[in-house]
Structure formats: structure tokens, C-alpha cells
């Protein structure tokens, strides 16, 4: 079959790490080719090279059989390569149209001709079933919609080779289904797709072939029809991966978090959370299931202290914390793995070791009399990155920005669990992690529980909720639909509740 992309013997190193080590990667025209590998294996780097963001140190790239030099993303665009990045690159106070034409604005009579652009965007949107409103502002649309804007951006530039870097990490299960449909539409129109994902099930569902890389080297390329999730996981991690957690029975004790009749306004001034009540006990994991945008963000931000409640109270260890500062709440033993790691989780321009003291820099032994003890901070960071397998070129002195997406996530999770919190509010704790890392983080969350700590987990992944939780609360339209014991429910029931269907018995 005809090869459309050939990357031969690609090497790329960063200070202290060889991100791509002699990688040869070939994509056939019209296929969906998955790229699989552990966090920090070099997937994003390889694709950034193909997209012209980085230059390879060695190796050639052939497109449609011809050798090309992709000096920058504009060249990539002209060659018909488009990319949706792991972390989107949209201007938030611009409209969809403005974002899409950014850099290639059609000019008529010295003015930007948004009208004709809009028309063309509508056209494309319809043709590929993207369902995007060209006039909407980015800040007002969901993450799934933002992603479809990124897809439109590629299509608008007539891209034929579409690179998706972990497109489903931020999507709800329904949106994932939509995306899969969109991908099939794209293939039918003759496009070629390279898909980076950690979700083996998605690879099995959509991809034709899969190339696995580990530590910057290719392990192999397989036909998806000849393989299985287990085999792929083993190829990628280099050992068998336990898909079963070893979960012992929970021994819940006293209630540590009590949410009482909480109502919170969302950013549009509407009630995003309505009269919500829930308790979390020590020694249990409570999962909150729900479709994205049903009040989870408002709930979490209010628990953390970033949002003021309209009504109702929050108790931590019996103390009313509703009007306490975020710091006071943290000092009472609350930790938080945020939904948006770049916005709320990390200071990207700080090093890893600086990020790992973000919540404890101000007390001993991290600092003394206002002076930071950098030796201690270094040693502490070394321990955390070893425990949580945070990989980077320059160890704890690498800037957080230079870490791969999954390693950024591991650094945050490491920081929060390392503080040994009484209550861990974990939003999508394993977003963007590879299966090995997910297994590890899940084990650590269970360990917290078994030590008598409480975990309140908010996740869009139903599997994660079902596997890990002892009790499952379901939220819909800002209201609590019900709470069920994980052992007495199943995917179907939770799915129904997530759509607002009440359940008679509330456990």
C-alpha cells in the first residue's frame, strides 16, 4: 500500500534525554495509525517534528515519497499536515472563525473577510459532522467543541495528514464516540490519521495499525486486528499489566467531608450547583460520576475555596470551612488534583522541584525563617519523582513545561499524595497517563483509603469510577441524583442516573 509519511531513523535529544532514538515510523495513505507508548516515551516529540515545531537532530522525513524539510508549522500546513495538540492552542476571547483563520486571514479590500471564512467553516463543519457554531466565542464552548474547532482548523488549511495528540484525554465518553465517528468520516474523505492515545480500547476500536515506542525507541508496529489490549500493554510497558486492582474491603469510619445544601453560581451567573448534599467518610473512596459540565467544576472549586457558595455549608472534620481561605483548608488536610493541570496544577515556568513545594514551601523543613532550604527541597523532590516515576531530562531541575503531559500529571499527583492528606479531592487523577502509570496511581489511591484517609474522586471515566469507588454519587444538572454502593450497581444503572434518571433507594 502507498506510504504517505515515512520518518526514517529520527533522532531528537533534549538536555539530558534522547526523546526519539533512531525512530522509523511509516504511515500508509488512508489509514488510522495509532502511536502508543508510556508517558515520556517521545510520542509528542516525534509528532512535533513531523509538524515542524522541532527539528530532528538526525534522520529524514519523506512525504508521498519525496524528501521534505519541515522547517516550521507553516511548511507543514503547506504540505498538508495538521495537528491537534495535547494542550489546545486557541485564543479564548476570539470566536471560532477568528481562531480558525488566524494567520491565514482572507483579505478583501484591506479588511479581514470573516463572512466568506464563516461560510466555508459552516460548510466543512457540516460535511464532516462537526456541529460547530462559527460565531461562538471559545471561552463559552465545551472542551469537546474546542477540539472540533482544532479539527476544523486543520481541515480549513486543507490538511490531508491529521495528527491527533491524545484527543480523547479531555473528552466525555459520549464525545469520544462522536470523535470516533468524525474520524471515520475523515478517512472516508481520503484523509490519513495519526492518533496518539493511551486508551487501548480506542486503538482496538478505530486504528488499523499501531506503532509502539518505549524510551524513545520503536518496539514494533502491529496490525490491530492481530493483537489485543493485553498484548499492546505488554509491548508498551515491557511487562504484564494487571488490569485487576487488588482491592480489599473498605472500612469506612467517621465522616470527614460534609457538604450541606450547597448552591453555587457558575461563571455565567446561573446556579451551576443546586442544593447539593453529600458526605465522604474516612477510609472510603467516593466517586462522583456525571457528564462533564453538570456542576462538577463548581462543586470542586467551592470545596477548594476558589468559589464562594451562594448557599449551604461545607464541613471538614466537623469544622465549618465555608468561609476559610484555600490555605487554611489545605492546612486542615485537604489536597486537590485539579481538572486543568496547566491552569491550576503547575507553574510551568518553575522547575519540577519548585512545583513540588507549591503547598509547603512556607514551613519547616522546606524553609526556615523565610529562607528556603534548597538542599532539602532538592532531596524531597528526588524522592517524589522516584516514587511516582516522574521522568524528565534534567530530573528535578527540569522546568515543568519541558515535561511530557503525562509526567506533568504524575508530578501533580505525587505532590498531592505525598502530603498524605486526610481528604484528597481528585479530579480526573489519571488523565493523560499510560496504563502502567494508571495502575500505579490507582494502587496509591486505594492505599490512601486503606490507611484510613478519604478520597473524593471526580471522573468522567465510568470505568475508573466503577473500579475504584466504594460509593458512587451521581450528579446531573447541578443536582445530586443519588448515591449507590459500588458493589450493588453496574454501568447501566450509573449511565441511566447520569442522564438524570432517579433511583428509588438511596444507599
Amino acid at each position, binding site marked *: 500500500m502507498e506510504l504517505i509519511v515515512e520518518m526514517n531513523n529520527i533522532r531528537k535529544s533534549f538536555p539530558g534525554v534522547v526523546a526519539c532514538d533512531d525512530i522509523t515510523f511509516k504511515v500508509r495513505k488512508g489509514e488510522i495509525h495509532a502511536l502508543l507508548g508510556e508517558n515520556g516515551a517521545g510520542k509528542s516529540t516525534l509528532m512535533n517534528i513531523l509538524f515542524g515545531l522541532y527539528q530532528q537532530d538526525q534522520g529524514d522525513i519523506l512525504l508521498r515519497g519525496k524528501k521534505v524539510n519541515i522547517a516550521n508549522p507553516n511548511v507543514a500546513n503547506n504540505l498538508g499536515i495538521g495537528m491537534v495538540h495535547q494542550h489546545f492552542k486557541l485564543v479564548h476571547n476570539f470566536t471560532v472563525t477568528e481562531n480558525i483563520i488566524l494567520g491565514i486571514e482572507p483579505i478583501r479590500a484591506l479588511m479581514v473577510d470573516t463572512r466568506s471564512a464563516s461560510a466555508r467553516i459552516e460548510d466543512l463543519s457540516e460535511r464532516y459532522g462537526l456541529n460547530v457554531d462559527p460565531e461562538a466565542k471559545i471561552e463559552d464552548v465545551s472542551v469537546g467543541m474546542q477540539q472540533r474547532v482544532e479539527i476544523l482548523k486543520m481541515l480549513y488549511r486543507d490538511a490531508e495528514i491529521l495528527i491527533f495528540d491524545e484527543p480523547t484525554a479531555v473528552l466525555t465518553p459520549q464525545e469520544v464516540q462522536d470523535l470516533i465517528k468524525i474520524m471515520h468520516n475523515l478517512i472516508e474523505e481520503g484523509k490519513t490519521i495519526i492518533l496518539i492515545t493511551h486508551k487501548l480500547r480506542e486503538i482496538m476500536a478505530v486504528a488499523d495499525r499501531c506503532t509502539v515506542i518505549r524510551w524513545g525507541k520503536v518496539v514494533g508496529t502491529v496490525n490491530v486486528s492481530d493483537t489485543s489490549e493485553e498484548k499492546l500493554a505488554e509491548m508498551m510497558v515491557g511487562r504484564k499489566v494487571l488490569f485487576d486492582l487488588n482491592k480489599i474491603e473498605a472500612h469506612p469510619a467517621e465522616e470527614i467531608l460534609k457538604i450541606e445544601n450547597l448552591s453555587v453560581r457558575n461563571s455565567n451567573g446561573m446556579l451551576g450547583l443546586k442544593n447539593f448534599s453529600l458526605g465522604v467518610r474516612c477510609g472510603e473512596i467516593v466517586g462522583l460520576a456525571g457528564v462533564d459540565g453538570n456542576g462538577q467544576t463548581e462543586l470542586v472549586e467551592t470545596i477548594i475555596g476558589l468559589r464562594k457558595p451562594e448557599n449551604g455549608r461545607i464541613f471538614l472534620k466537623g469544622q465549618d470551612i465555608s468561609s476559610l481561605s484555600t490555605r487554611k483548608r489545605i492546612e486542615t488536610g485537604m489536597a486537590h488534583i485539579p481538572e486543568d493541570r496547566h*491552569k491550576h496544577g503547575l507553574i510551568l515556568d518553575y522547575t519540577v522541584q519548585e512545583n513540588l513545594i*507549591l503547598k509547603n514551601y*512556607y514551613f519547616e523543613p522546606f524553609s526556615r525563617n*523565610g529562607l528556603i532550604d534548597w538542599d532539602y527541597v532538592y532531596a524531597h523532590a528526588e524522592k517524589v519523582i522516584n516514587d511516582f516515576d516522574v521522568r524528565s531530562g534534567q530530573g528535578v531541575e527540569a522546568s515543568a513545561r519541558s515535561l511530557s503531559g503525562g509526567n506533568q500529571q504524575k508530578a501533580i499527583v505525587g505532590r498531592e499524595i505525598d502530603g498524605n492528606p486526610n481528604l484528597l479531592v481528585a479530579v480526573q487523577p489519571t488523565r493523560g497517563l499510560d496504563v502502567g502509570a494508571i495502575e500505579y496511581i490507582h494502587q496509591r489511591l486505594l492505599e490512601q483509603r486503606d490507611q484510613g484517609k478519604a478520597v473524593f474522586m471526580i471522573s468522567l471515566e465510568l470505568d475508573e469510577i466503577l473500579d475504584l469507588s466504594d460509593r458512587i454519587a451521581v450528579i446531573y444538572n447541578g443536582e445530586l441524583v443519588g448515591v449507590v454502593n459500588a458493589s450493588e450497581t453496574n454501568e447501566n444503572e450509573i449511565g441511566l442516573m447520569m442522564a438524570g434518571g432517579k433511583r428509588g433507594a438511596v444507599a
Partner: protein
Amino acid sequence: MSVFAVILGLIAGAILMIATGNNPLDGFYFLFRGGLMNIERVGNTLATATPLIFAGLSVAFAFKTGLFNIGGAGQMLIGGLCATAIGLTFDWPKPILLAVIIIAALIGGALWASLPGLLKAKFNVHEVVSTIMMNWIAYWIIFYIVPQYFKGPFLETESQRIPAAASLKVPWLTSLFSGSFINLGFFLAIIVVVISAFILERTTLGYELKAVGYNRDAAGAAGINVNRNVILSMAIAGALAGLGGATFYVGFASNMQIGVLPAQGFDGIAVALLGANSPWGVFAAAIFFGILHTGKGFMNAMTAIPPEIADTIIATIIYFAATSVLIERNWDKLLKFNRDNLLRRKKKESLEVEAGGDQ
């Protein structure tokens, strides 16, 4: 310091000198000679640089917290007013008087700048707008207070001269630099540079300020009090500019004029930019500007080059410093391009040598 910006600025200056029919080598020779020729001129260069160091630090410090302090001029005026008022009012022994003057200027500047900080923290008023307004408020305060309470013997438009006991100029230093303007302010500047670097690198305060500057959402989510840091950062910036005002009005000069916003307050932005917002970078940038300012008169006297060329060089450097990120990126590309060519050529050669070998 962005060396590129300096080099490009100097090249632009050279082109201008050639365009106006002058020899740039002569021009630069006299420009730098004018700033460094003898001990007196070195002293004047350092004296000119002193308020720039403070103003630059002020802008740089606020910038670390993500704030644009355009109010350096007003903060200098208030610092200068506090210093002048105390110098003219009290008749204390010099060491005590100077200590009180410095502290008063520091507090005056800090309070003055914390107001925009407060407005930003509480009402989200953009600090660029409020600091510029504060500049004009300071301007008019001086305009009324100086003639009212500290009028000079001859002119309505300036204050009395401060007594020798209230001046940062000290005889031993003046004579050491054979009569130059240099004063104790320069040593104060060095101390403050060291302290600023220490605060930013080693203390929890610096850690917080920078965290807020880099990402205020993440800082807030981690429990850092963002508003407190915004106010604190502005107060420190104001204190630094206030000190600069003292070194300017009771050190470099010996009275206050009304109706002038000190240009150093704005030059501080350029100094901070060129010094890449690091304390020692600011120090070096301020001295460099000091040389140009001190040397331009001499260049003008010795050649037919107008002194505005020196100002143009400064302006060009600022321009390039502002775009230095871009320049450096392209520079890297250029280097890489050359290296690639070299590699390719080498590879070709080696291929030719072992023709038929694999790849």
C-alpha cells in the same frame, strides 16, 4: 543582559553616524571615552546610573509578580519629597539624618505604590492605568507643596537647597572621584541589588511573588494569597523607586524642581527590559545607560555627531531588547542552519569516501 540588543543598537547607531556623514569609530570612541575617560567621568557615570538602578529594579520586581509598574516617576517624586522635607526640616547629625531620610523615602514610595496594588487586588483596576494616574497626582502634589512649604530663596519653581548634612554627597567620595556627582546612593544601590537578588532567589517571599507572576490561578489554588502578593509586590516596587527618588533629589541633585516628572522613572522600564528583569542584569544595564548619557556630551563636543544619536542608540537598544526573544530564536536558527550545512557537507564527504557503504 541581552547582549544582542546592545550589539544591534550599536550597529544601528553606527549606521546613523555613517548616514549623517560621520565616522562611527570616532563616534563610539568619544562616546565611551566621554563616559569613562577619567575618574571624574566614571564617577558621573555611576552617579547617573544610580537612580536608574533603583528605577530599573522597581520595574523588574513588579514584573516578577506579573505587574507593569509604570509609576516609577511618581514614586520617585514622593520618595524625593519625603527625603527633601526631612532634610530641610530637621537639624540632626548627618548619619542619623541620612538614615531617617532613606527610611522615609522608602516608606513614602512603598505607600504611594501600594495604592495601585490595592486597587488591582480589590477592584481589578489595571495597574498600568492607575500607576500612570498616580504619576500625575504626585506631579501636582509636588507642584503645590514645594512652593508652599519649601520654597527656594529666589525661584518659585524649585525647593530650597538641602543642607550638606542632608545630602548623600560626602566630601571624601567627591574628592576621591575628583569632584564628580557620585554619592552614597551608589553604594546603597549595590546593597539593594544584593538584597533584591537574595529575596527573589532564596526567600519564601520571592518564591510566592514569582509564583503569582507566572501563574496566579495555580498559585491561588495552592493556597497562596494572590491579592496580598500583588499589594506587597507593588509596595516593594514603590519602595525601590522611592529610594531612587532620594538618591536623585538629595544625592545627584540638591533640590526639587516642580513641573517635572523624572525621566529616570520611565527609563527604568528600559533598564529592566535590557537587564532581563534580573537584579544584576538591571545593575549592568543601568551602568551601560549611564555611560551613554554621560558620554554623549563629550561625543558631541569632539565630533559633529549630534547627541541625539546617543539617545537613538538607547532607543534602538530598547526596541531590540523588547524583541530580543524573537532575535534570539532566529539567531539559533541561523546557527543551526550553518551547523546543518556543515553536517551535511561532512556526511557527503564521508559518503564519498566510503562509497557503497550502508546509508
